[in-house]
């Protein structure tokens, strides 16, 4: 597989030999990856596999030790400032201001992305309506249940209508119903034309993705459409596939159908 710049610009995310070391330890090891526009791409792997490290490199939070990646066609080594305007990022750990009202949080991120006052109002109205946050507009963020905090984080990450969303374990720690509802929002977002790059430990969620990769010790050990991967490795569920490839169990997440 050869990659060049023009090729990569048609893709939402491309990684070529992407590597990141912490001291002697290689957290991401020669990662090769292509994600097309409009995909919901599931970025799977056990704890410590290197998912967050890879995402942080895509978002410009961390410099690669070697290799290169392109995000929305732009090389991360040179254009991280431009990339920031085009992506939305929800970190693994909830990281909005607990001591602001939820409306103030959204206002702040709208302002930071340079939206006008009018645009911000419009965007808050439409997003809060869609995400079911309108009633809690004037609630202090710290008082929200985790599931709603995650929705607020999604709303804030999407204030500027990014074409590409990086969601790092967006549903960690909430009940299956809340997870299901959050995934409905992810679907809607993808239907609107955005690319969603999402990590998860829940294998039921992996089934919702258009394609997934499974990572182990900094390397990708499987990549493809969930149904094909299962067929290829002769397993019934993503759960079994994950166990077989990674050697540890993902969380089944007691999916509600």
């Amino acid at each position, binding site marked *: 597989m050869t990659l060049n710049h023009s090729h990569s610009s048609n893709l939402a995310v491309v990684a070529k030999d992407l590597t990141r070391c912490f001291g002697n330890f290689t957290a991401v090891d020669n990662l090769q990856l292509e994600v097309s526009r409009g995909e919901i791409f599931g970025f799977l792997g056990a704890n410590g596999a290197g998912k967050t490290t890879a995402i942080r490199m895509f978002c410009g*939070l961390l410099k690669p030790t070697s290799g290169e990646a392109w995000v929305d066609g732009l090389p991360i080594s040179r254009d991280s400032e431009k990339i920031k305007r085009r992506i939305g990022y929800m970190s693994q750990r909830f*990281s909005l*201001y607990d001591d602001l009202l939820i409306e*103030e949080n959204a206002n702040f991120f709208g302002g930071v992305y*340079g939206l006008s006052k009018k645009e911000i109002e419009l965007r808050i109205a439409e997003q809060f309506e869609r995400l079911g946050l309108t009633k809690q507009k004037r609630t202090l963020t710290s008082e929200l249940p985790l599931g709603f905090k995650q929705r607020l984080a999604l709303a804030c990450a999407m204030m500027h209508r990014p074409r590409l969303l990086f969601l790092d374990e967006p549903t960690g720690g909430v009940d299956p119903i809340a997870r299901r509802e959050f995934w409905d929002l992810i679907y809607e977002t993808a239907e609107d034309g955005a690319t969603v790059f999402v990590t998860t430990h829940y294998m039921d969620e992996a089934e919702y993705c258009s394609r997934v990769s499974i990572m182990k010790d900094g390397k990708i050990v499987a990549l493809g459409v969930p149904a094909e991967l299962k067929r290829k490795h002769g397993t019934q569920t993503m759960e079994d596939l994950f166990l077989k490839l990674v050697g540890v169990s993902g969380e089944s997440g007691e999916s509600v159908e």
Partner: protein
Amino acid sequence: MKTIITIVRKEFQQILRDKGMLRMIVAVPIIQLFIFAYAVTTDLKNVKLAYVDHDRTSESRQLVDAFFTSGYFTSVGMAENQTKLMSWLMEGKADITLNIPIGYAEGIVRGNVSDVGLIVDGQNSSLSGRGRGYAEAIIRTEAAKLMENKRLEHPELETKMHRIVPVTRYYYNPELESKKYMVPAIVVLLISIISGMLTGMAVVKEKEVGTLEQLMVTPITPMQFIAGKTIPFIFIAFFELAFASLIAIFFFKIPFEGSVLLMIAAAILYLQVTLGAGLLASTVSQIQQQAMFTVWFFLLFGILMSGFFYPVENMPKWIYMLTYLNPVRHFMEIMRGIFLKGVTFSDIIPQFALLFGLGTLIFGTAVIKFRKMND
């Protein structure tokens, strides 16, 4: 610019919601002003002084009187010799001893005042340290008075005397009213604490709760972030300065002889120092307490070496030289000068220049370190 305003607004929303922070901004200055102002004045009321007067002239008796009428010293009695004085000091009967040598009065005429022997009990450092400062000031004030009299009596000595008039450290505070001297210094302390600590804590808080990482995937630049984080504390520092100064002037009846504009200009230069210190602390701290203690550590150092408690001239020579690098000292001198002496810009150009230089250095270093950290 719009981005900076967005950050500033967010910062104020957070500050106004934080009861602890509000308490710190409004109540702490009042409490500190009162505690310090009173602690300082009552503390110094009863320094126990023993003396021996070998000179036995009207001038030497005047010096002894000056001590006991100052209101800061109580008499332990007159000793017959130095040995006796030392034993009183050892036994703790006296905090400070004064030995007036033969020829004191004559020495004064020649401008020779350092012959007066002061020994201070070093065990109670705060009391004896300030006691010593006051004792020295009394000696110098007396000497200056005597010399002035001599000059009036013998105008023909004018030119010769002029050269040897000792520089009086407490010139601008001749009555040695410690309150007058301390309250402007406490105002300095207050705005240092508020602007330095709160800035450091506010920046580290973003690190601690992870919002800094979230901000770094937005188009905010480090410079915008720094501006947005420090501007609110510039406002608060000025609020604090006005608030504390008003208490000083109207409650403590501290004179305000100088210019408000000059004070504002000096404060702006000084804020570079404190905001820079807060920012620097935030680059080496992971949690808010760490930032708070780091700022506090440097501030304490700066305050101890600023002449807050007693004049820097009393310190050993090499420490005295080091205090030139201490921005707190320069701002302290400017503030005391503005409050008590009514200094004008031309009187304090060196302090302004040093404050500007040191401030730019500290803030500049902080900005560079902060940008590196986020790389």
